[in-house]
């Protein structure tokens, strides 16, 4: 039972990550590969504040999310100069940098040794320590993320985002500030990624740089693409399926030395098949031209 609840929590965290990346990649059409980096910043900021300064994890989560948002704000300026593949590469590089900092800034992050014993959340003196309480907590944040993003995308503001995805030049000449919209989208997306990172840190109680590799960012992107770009329900589907699916491999009785590479191979194969047959993703409507 604990195990199933654990899967729920992890899936929920990935849903938050996938929803927020979908806003950037799926709705606005900005190819960003560094989403894991935002959650890394959120996780480390929140964990370090709680461990070293005794800050409440709630405040730490907010601070971590804000820091991720500031970073998203910075990254959005790269998207002024770079488009398409080049921007994808630049954000990829950004994810590598953040990972390297987490790994090498030993004085603060303890490097590869990671941060053990991260305190958990408390609500009115009640310590959230069992899996059930975390299922509820993550569920609440999934709900908040969904509600916020649903309001953003189903509005005149969201319509401008979809226009940017289709044709930036045509959007600019009807008087929409394309860059401003991209910046907002990066800030909002990074903010929620920061929240997801913080939830993860306080739930697992241990983080190390290996949780935030570039591969992690790619996995989140895969979830977005799999579920469908520009579809919020698709993000739920993509995240849940890709979290649960590898777990099923365990029940095939495979040794972990086989299961782990097999998981990567299946991810890769899935992506290739998807691109061939349904490039817009399972529930997506938008097709890249």
């Amino acid at each position, binding site marked *: 039972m604990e195990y199933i609840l654990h899967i729920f929590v992890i899936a929920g965290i990935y849903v938050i990550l996938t929803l927020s990346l979908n806003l950037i990649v799926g709705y606005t059409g900005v190819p960003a590969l560094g989403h894991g980096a935002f959650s890394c910043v959120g996780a480390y900021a929140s964990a370090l504040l709680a461990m070293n300064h005794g800050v409440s994890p709630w405040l730490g989560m907010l601070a971590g999310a804000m820091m991720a948002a500031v970073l998203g704000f910075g990254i959005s300026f790269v998207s002024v100069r770079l488009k398409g593949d080049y921007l994808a590469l630049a954000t990829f590089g950004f994810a590598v940098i953040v990972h390297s900092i987490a790994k090498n800034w030993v004085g603060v992050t303890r490097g590869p040794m990671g941060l053990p014993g991260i305190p958990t959340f408390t609500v009115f003196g009640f310590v959230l320590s069992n899996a059930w309480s975390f299922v509820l907590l993550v569920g609440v944040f999934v709900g908040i993320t969904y509600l*916020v993003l649903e*309001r*953003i995308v189903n*509005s*005149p*503001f*969201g*319509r*401008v985002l*979809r*226009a940017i995805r*289709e*044709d930036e*030049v*045509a*959007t*600019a*000449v*009807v*008087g*929409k*500030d*394309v860059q401003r919209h991209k910046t*907002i989208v990066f800030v909002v997306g990074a903010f929620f990624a920061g929240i997801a990172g913080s939830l993860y840190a306080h739930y697992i109680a241990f983080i190390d740089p290996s949780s935030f590799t570039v591969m992690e960012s790619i996995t989140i992107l895969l979830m977005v693409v799999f579920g469908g770009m520009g579809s919020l329900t698709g993000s739920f589907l993509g995240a849940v399926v890709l979290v649960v699916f590898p777990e099923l491999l365990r029940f095939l009785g495979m040794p972990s030395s086989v299961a782990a590479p097999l998981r990567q191979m299946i991810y890769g194969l899935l992506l290739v098949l998807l691109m061939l047959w349904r490039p817009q993703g399972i529930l997506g*409507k*938008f*097709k890249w031209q």
Partner: protein
Amino acid sequence: MTMTHPSGKHTNAVSQPATNTPLLSLREVCKAFGGVKALDRCSFDVQWGQITALIGPNGAGKTTVFNVVSGLLNADRGTVQFKGQSIQRLPPHRIAKLGVGRTFQDNRIFPQMSVLDNVLLGMRYDQGESLTTALARSRVMSEEEQRHREKATALLAKVGLSHKADALAGELSFGQRKLLEVAKAIAAEPVFLMLDEPMAGLFPAMIEKMRRFIVELRETGTTVLFIEHNMNVVMNMADWVIVLDYGKCIAEGTPAEIQNDEEVIHAYLGKRKLHVAES
């Protein structure tokens, strides 16, 4: 006297200021792509309230003029003034907000969005398009959206696309796309509208529809600058004609004057005389 703007707004028939400043003024504008001079000390004015045609052989720099004025390209040298104020180096969205609308030769509509959404994107929102109103899902947003929806619907009826309002723009025929792009550009109620070959590829009935539509725009006070190769259309519709060749403005005048201008005939049509149908 007031008239109904095609997008539904009541505007004064003549909205020009008392002064004689032209609406748009290009002076010695140069733009080179590598070694090719697309615009070479190009100078001309567009007067308020007129329909001005921009003609010239292929590669004369007509579209480059549009791109420089709408801010997609920065001129290498020279000045571009709109309503007497310099618009050089302003980003495209700022220029659009000053009241400059444009269409593209290659139909830049949003193919994967509905026809109605395309027109709504052209609309100028006050508050309703901001992130905060979206997050608050405020009354301001829904009211403004509702108002714009009604205007957009009326505008679609005007161009004869009502029955396609919910279809994806990408499903429209070529001619319908052209109409939609014009509708999208007009939605913002521009003071100045630049149309890049609005008639190209349209069949005669559609050309007539577009022509009437553009003439009607002038009546409501919108200044129009259009690029066109169809000389019948140019001579019929334009109040003023500007001729570009090799990036220079080589002649300008009324359609009648241009028809008889030796240099234009020489540069634009070789030695032949313009054939213009009587109408």
